[in-house]
């Protein structure tokens, strides 16, 4: 399986994503933002970081970068696109995913482990995954997902809520919502479910000596679903 990680100036989880993809069997390549197009791939990943410094709204400049047209074409033709953290922000800025990511509720950067519940597994990202609740890691300043009432209605109707913040047992409430996201949303799909954007970082949880191992489940399962 071939994957491509897009590297923007200011991306800083690109290497971590590369390490994780390779560890679980993807043939990964790095693609610089200034390229005209993404080489043939089965999966495109927009990694975390601070693309172009995020001095404007997070992800907004990356959404206008040279490479992004090729990513949009790939996504619209049904190709699998994964955006983690800043990658999720970029996906909302391109319009491939609805909504926006605002500053966290307490106005602070948050770096910690969280639990997320998988809300839909009829898609290539989560099909057959062994667990319903994953322990993953967040590290962001703008992870507070928001969308209009109409958009919310639409994403709920289309089952586009991918993952939500919860406690260990799967309970979703305000106490287990680290950043104030609407409906505890940690990640969403597009209607066709070939695009996933989420704040948590599975690539930081890929062996037992790190903050946890549930990221391994995510990548193993993703590769299985390609076969």
């Amino acid at each position, binding site marked *: 399986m071939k994957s491509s990680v897009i590297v923007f100036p200011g991306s800083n989880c690109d290497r971590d994503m590369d390490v994780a993809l390779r560890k679980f069997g993807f043939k990964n390549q790095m693609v610089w933002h200034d390229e005209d197009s993404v080489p043939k791939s089965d999966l495109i990943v927009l990694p975390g970081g601070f693309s172009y410094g995020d001095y404007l709204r997070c992800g907004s400049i990356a959404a206008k970068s040279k490479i992004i047209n090729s990513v949009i074409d790939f996504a619209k033709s049904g190709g699998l696109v994964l955006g983690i953290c800043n990658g999720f922000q970029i996906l909302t800025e391109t319009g491939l995913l609805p909504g926006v990511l605002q500053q966290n509720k307490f106005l602070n950067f948050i770096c910690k482990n969280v639990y997320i519940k998988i809300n839909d597994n009829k898609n290539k990202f989560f099909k057959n995954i062994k667990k319903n609740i994953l322990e993953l890691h967040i590290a962001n300043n703008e992870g507070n997902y928001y969308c209009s009432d109409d958009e919310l209605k639409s994403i709920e109707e289309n089952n586009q809520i991918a993952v939500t913040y919860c406690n260990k047992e799967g309970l979703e409430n305000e106490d287990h919502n680290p950043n104030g996201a609407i409906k505890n949303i940690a990640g969403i799909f597009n209607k066709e479910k070939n695009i996933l954007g989420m704040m948590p970082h599975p690539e930081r949880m890929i062996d037992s*000596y790190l903050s946890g191992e549930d990221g391994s489940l995510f990548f193993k399962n993703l590769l299985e679903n390609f076969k």
Partner: protein
Amino acid sequence: MEVTENIALEHGLNKEEYKNIRNLLKRVPNITELAIFSAMWNEHCSYKSSRKHLKKLHTKGNKVIQGPGENAGVIDIGDDDAIVFKIESHNHPSFIEPYQGAATGVGGIMRDVFTMGARPIANLNSIHFGSPHHKKTKNLLRGVVKGIGGYGNCIGVPTIAGQTSFDESYNGNILVNAMTLGLVNKNKIFYSKASGIDKPVIYVGSKTGRDGIHGASMASAIFDEKIEEKKPTVQVGDPFTEKLLLEACLELMADNSIISIQDMGAAGLTSSSIEMASKGNLGIELNLNKVPCREEKMTPYEIMLSESQERMLIILENGKENKAKKIFDKWNLDFAIIGKTTNSEKIELFFDNKSVANIPINLLAENAPVYDRKWKKTKLPQKLIIKKDDFKSLNLSDCLKKILKNPNISDKQWIWDQYDQTVMGDTIQKPGGDAGIVRVHGTNKAVAASVDSSASYCFAHPLTGGKQVVCESWRNLISVGAKPIALTNCLNFGNPEKEKNMGEFVECVEGITEASKYLDFPVVSGNVSFYNETKDKGIKPTPTIGGVGLIKEYKKMISMDFKKEGNLVLILGKTEGHLDQSVFAKEILAEKKGPPPSINLFNEKNIGGTVLKLIDQNLIDTCHDVSLGGILIAISKMCIKGKKGIKFNPIKGLINKFEFFFGEDQGRYVIEVSKTNIDKTKQILEENSVHYDEIGTVDKSNIILDNNTNLSVDELENENKNWLRNYMVN
């Protein structure tokens, strides 16, 4: 502008120094030259008060590749891998503008590390604030934490450990010390020494603006009520540009184009160009019209003094200019050839085709003033006599709860949650333990690091305090299973022109030297920050030690959280109940006098070495050193982290329970051992003559002190965790 004595004084030079400059030059300097002298001769750049004493530091060892004198120190960790590291202060700017001050402190130290060819792999920080009741403390703390996070998080380097303290002596002068570790192939280290004549001098990075002019002189002055006016001397950080600069420099370093490289830190273009030339015994010629400027009509004076961030000076091999330029173009960074090396041994500056400065380099470097300042020894204070009656009214569990929420003991999660601790995917111990640990990417090795300081001990008796901090750092590394290799120090002190403050400096350095020599734990880098004083009030002497250790097989590392019910808990090292200068004495008895606990270097080395043996043989499950607050605080934290309890055995010996539980005797560790391994463990301890006491057994969820005292760990956790969060939110 004609330079006069008054103008020289305004630049922070004294009359004697100005006279000296005229004699050396055999003429009156012009304003740009005066600026260069003032920048090079101030305390921050010249180390004029400290140099004499810093020479005594123990700086050699068989793992030391580069000791003090370069951008950072370098140690060998085997297999061609080397760790580059340094700690640096950014105290004065952080007090004036906490966000930018702290952010640029982090940026500056990371640049020092990647200048040497190393990719930064971990950040640490040691931050010290005034009393929590002081009106400025909360905002300063919030700003500093945001600044550190804002910069480090954006670059994508994990913050793996830190230290925060509160003390009223920092009311008018907070301390912000930032440390970075980088990883480099030991055959590909870059140095700042220039060599070769007619080599192009290249400027890369951000453009030069008017920010930070006189930053280094500000850091060499004491504050008064007009500090707000100094805001424009604080630099503004741009972590995005630094990230680009980091990647561009590492890309250029992958090939053999660079002869030498130096970041533009304090005193910007002035000190970087002069240091490179001075180390290579060369001259340097710069055309200041070629320097990329952000603002219009900048004068040579401003260009030379600007402390704009994210800039580097490189001396390239001839013919490599185009190749280098391509790399910097790719990363969208300025690249300008601004001069060349010469054999004149002078710095020669040109602007609008006119010579604007012409100074022999040795006058700026070797001829910089060195002072042998007067200093006063601090006598060891008399031991406190605490009456039995003073203990009578006290209740052990109340004391424990009160100390757990003492600002200096309380949990600092509110702070480190704001730092990215896990980016780069190799952090295997995060902040909150004895030391942070990152793996050496793609290997079985890991590097542990810790930052420590003990201002109260150093204030009471600087010589003991200096030794203690080194030992504390050593113990923190040992506690996670790392062999201590070397350290970096950030020496934060008051006004060196005062005998008492100078004495504190001299004796702390002596203490550091004695301990680091004995423990074979050399100093490889560091910096000195004097004049931490506002309106005559100086800070307590605060040498900060950043220790680095190596774990050969990271799977053998251990942590401080209790693991399993039924396991035995031992204290290694003798407990004698030293309460003077302890948190207990200050918090419960309101007593600030007395000597700090004494240091026995033989015991430190012996016990530390034995603990490493136990860890290496997989005999112990948990280890934590006993520090502030004594045994009961150490053990409470182990319970909280492991979500376990402990049942204590009855106390043996002559001391009372308060002395036993809260005494801060040095050189002690708490270890957890399973019943299977206890005999073998005891045997090794006995063979190595390590004193130990079996003090209890890991329990389910409570701390059971005796028949009458049984405390829930959950409740203690709340006491410990809530103080800072509540303080910051309310």
